[in-house]
């Protein structure tokens, strides 16, 4: 095992690739005995240290209850996927880890993770305890999931109450109302725009390609898992989203350089834009940038009149157990503990997550209206990203195609429906070629 992982690490570096996040430090080794678990947590809080501080008492409590020690490592988002890949390839893996829930089906396809079959599900407290849409993200349909929901997230449309009141506007309920309001609030001379988009972030972009396609009733993959990117509904959905910058001009072209959601949120919090689309955990950065929580409102991201009411993908974090864990029982106990109502309540506030368990109320905000809106979006108006093995390829190819189209618009070019179709065809070909 040791030699194999060494060769694997060496082989990866031999590709001439600067792999910065090699998990070669050995602390990911699962062979540490029956009463110790290694847990990789993704970065949820304001910093890696903040995550450690939040998790430490929770993990200590688990140790006190079960006698199982937990070695915690918090991993930043940029490194997480590569770390997981390295762990799968080398076998130097943690026992339990957090994954982005959109990767679930892709990771499931590697066969490196423990399936939560009936017995395993029972061990962690039964599948009935989870919100259905959340549990649906666990893996491909018809197979035992290889991950279970841990933290729930959903997109919402944040709006600046004062700016809306001043312009005599009501919070939008349809796409058309949203665009009209955004146009009214846009004033390029004053550098104020109706909306900010993370138009340079391929992950954000693919989410909105998905949501806009879903609002048109389109699917990105057929029942056999074959890509159907060029369906009219997808093409029109993508174009509708691009048009916020292109035709409607309610977003600043420099948004094409926003390679993560935080920059758009900052623009919103500092009053440069009237609306922003972000997940429910944006509240802390909005407040950190000086906007009081009473100064903004949230509504579901609206669909065009007559469209499907899809306002978000089912976003969030799932928990997986590595197949080759030597501590299966302890790992299951740990998953049960982490998805326990008490633990969920403790972590819900600092990590600003929506409950993944039925009958729980969100703890991430003190504003009951905001909590209710997000919970409603999460449970009733969201749809999981395609639960197919090629989901990761879908994310990267379609997301990057969106980046390129936004860049074209920002630098003065025009993107037509045919251009969108051609770009999506390109993305689809790459997915098919990747097999």
């Amino acid at each position, binding site marked *: 095992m040791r030699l194999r992982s060494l*060769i694997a690490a060496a*082989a990866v570096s*031999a*590709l001439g690739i600067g792999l910065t996040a090699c998990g070669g430090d050995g602390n990911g080794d699962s062979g540490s005995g029956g009463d110790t678990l290694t847990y990789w947590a993704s970065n949820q809080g304001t910093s890696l240290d903040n995550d450690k501080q939040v998790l430490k008492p929770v993990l200590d409590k688990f140790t006190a209850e079960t006698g199982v020690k937990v070695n915690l490592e918090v991993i930043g988002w940029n490194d997480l996927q590569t770390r997981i890949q390295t762990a799968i390839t080398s076998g130097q893996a943690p026992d339990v880890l957090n994954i982005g829930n959109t990767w679930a089906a892709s990771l499931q396809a590697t066969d490196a993770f423990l399936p939560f079959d009936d017995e395993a599900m029972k061990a962690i407290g039964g599948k009935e305890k989870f919100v259905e849409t959340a549990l649906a993200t666990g893996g491909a349909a018809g197979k035992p999931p290889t991950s279970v929901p841990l933290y729930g997230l959903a997109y919402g449309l944040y709006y600046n109450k004062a700016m809306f009141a001043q312009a005599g506007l009501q919070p939008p309920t349809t796409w058309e109302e949203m665009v009209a309001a955004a146009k009214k609030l846009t004033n390029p001379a004053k550098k104020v725009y109706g909306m900010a988009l993370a138009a340079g972030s391929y992950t954000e972009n693919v989410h909105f390609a998905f949501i806009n396609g879903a609002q048109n009733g389109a699917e990105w993959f057929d029942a056999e898992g074959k890509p159907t990117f060029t369906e009219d509904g997808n093409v029109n959905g993508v174009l509708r989203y691009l048009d916020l910058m292109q035709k409607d001009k309610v977003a600043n072209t420099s948004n094409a*350089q926003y390679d993560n959601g935080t920059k758009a949120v900052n623009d919103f919090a500092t009053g440069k834009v009237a609306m922003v689309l972000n997940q429910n955990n944006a509240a802390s950065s909005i407040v950190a940038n000086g906007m009081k929580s009473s100064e903004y409102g949230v509504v579901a991201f609206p669909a065009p009149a007559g469209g499907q009411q899809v306002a978000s993908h089912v976003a969030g974090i799932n928990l997986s157990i590595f197949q080759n864990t030597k501590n299966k029982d302890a790992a299951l106990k740990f998953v049960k503990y982490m998805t326990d109502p008490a633990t969920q309540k403790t972590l819900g506030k600092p990590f600003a997550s929506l409950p993944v368990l039925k009958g729980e109320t969100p703890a991430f905000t003190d504003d009951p209206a905001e909590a209710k809106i997000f919970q409603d979006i999460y449970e009733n108006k969201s749809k999981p990203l395609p639960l197919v093995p090629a989901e990761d390829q879908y994310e990267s190819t379609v997301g990057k195609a969106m980046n390129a189209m936004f860049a074209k618009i*920002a*630098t003065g070019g025009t993107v037509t429906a045919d251009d969108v179709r051609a770009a999506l065809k390109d993305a689809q070909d790459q997915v098919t070629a990747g097999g």
Partner: protein
Amino acid sequence: MAVAVETRRRAQGQVRGRPPRQPGQKSWLPYLLLAPAVLLELLIHIIPMVVGIWMSFVKLTKFFIANWSAAPWAGFNNYRIAVDLNGTVGQGLLRSFLVTIAFSLLTVTISWCLGMAAAVALQPTFKGRSFVRTLFLVPYALPAYAGILTWNFMLQRDTGVVNHVLVDNLGVMSDRPFWLLGGNALTSLVTVAVWRLWPFAFLTLMAGLQSIPRDVYEAASVDGAGSVRQWRNITLPSLRPVNLVLVLVLFLWTFSDFNTPYVLFGTAQPPKGDLITFHIYNASFLTWNFGSGAAMSVLLLLFLLVVTSVYLVITNRRSRRA
């Protein structure tokens, strides 16, 4: 006679080549001493390279990476997809290859010119010379990530200092251009790469210049050669061996540069900045297709081997003729 000399030498233990074995000396000792180096060479270079080549012939997708030694054989399929110019993958690879060629030629040329100019300018002694020299070496000494990340900030459209100076202070342009998107991406990439690379050219050329005897220049100037002629007829030919190595190394470095596009563009790399190593990284890691990524890497390796050998053959022939 010769035999006699040879015998005497041998008696004195002076045979050319291998010294005679002393009685009691262990024959395996040299191998033992070499073993760590051989082992490391195997581990660091040979084995990974063999594994990489093997990977390029298998279908190593996410379905097999957990048990990658059992990945099914793909034959030349990965290569076929990579060079198929009718397919999206092949077109993408070709595009990125062409971008990389343009990037490398520009970067090496500009870095060399700057390095040469600075090295020549700093030859005469003057007050503050060592300070200027140190200043020139700063980009080279700075950690790559920190330097490139700073460029990323500076080249932002709205908040970057570059646009601030060009548009707000100097008024050279009315509309703020994007530097990291669209057509300007390659310009920015070359600028940052040159900024990082030219101090190395400068350092190497300066060392080369110092090995040329001063009296050659004195003789030339007595004969009436101006500084341009001196440079062309003395400096350039004397620096030939240095330049041969320098240009090759600069080319190999720029061609396989990963850090600059990775840090400068992040995940939002524009097509005009899609350098080949970064392209391969995306092909392998973002879509989990390591077999096809490995095939592209092997192709890249072959290309660089061919370029290097052709370069060495040509330059060797020229220097033999000279």
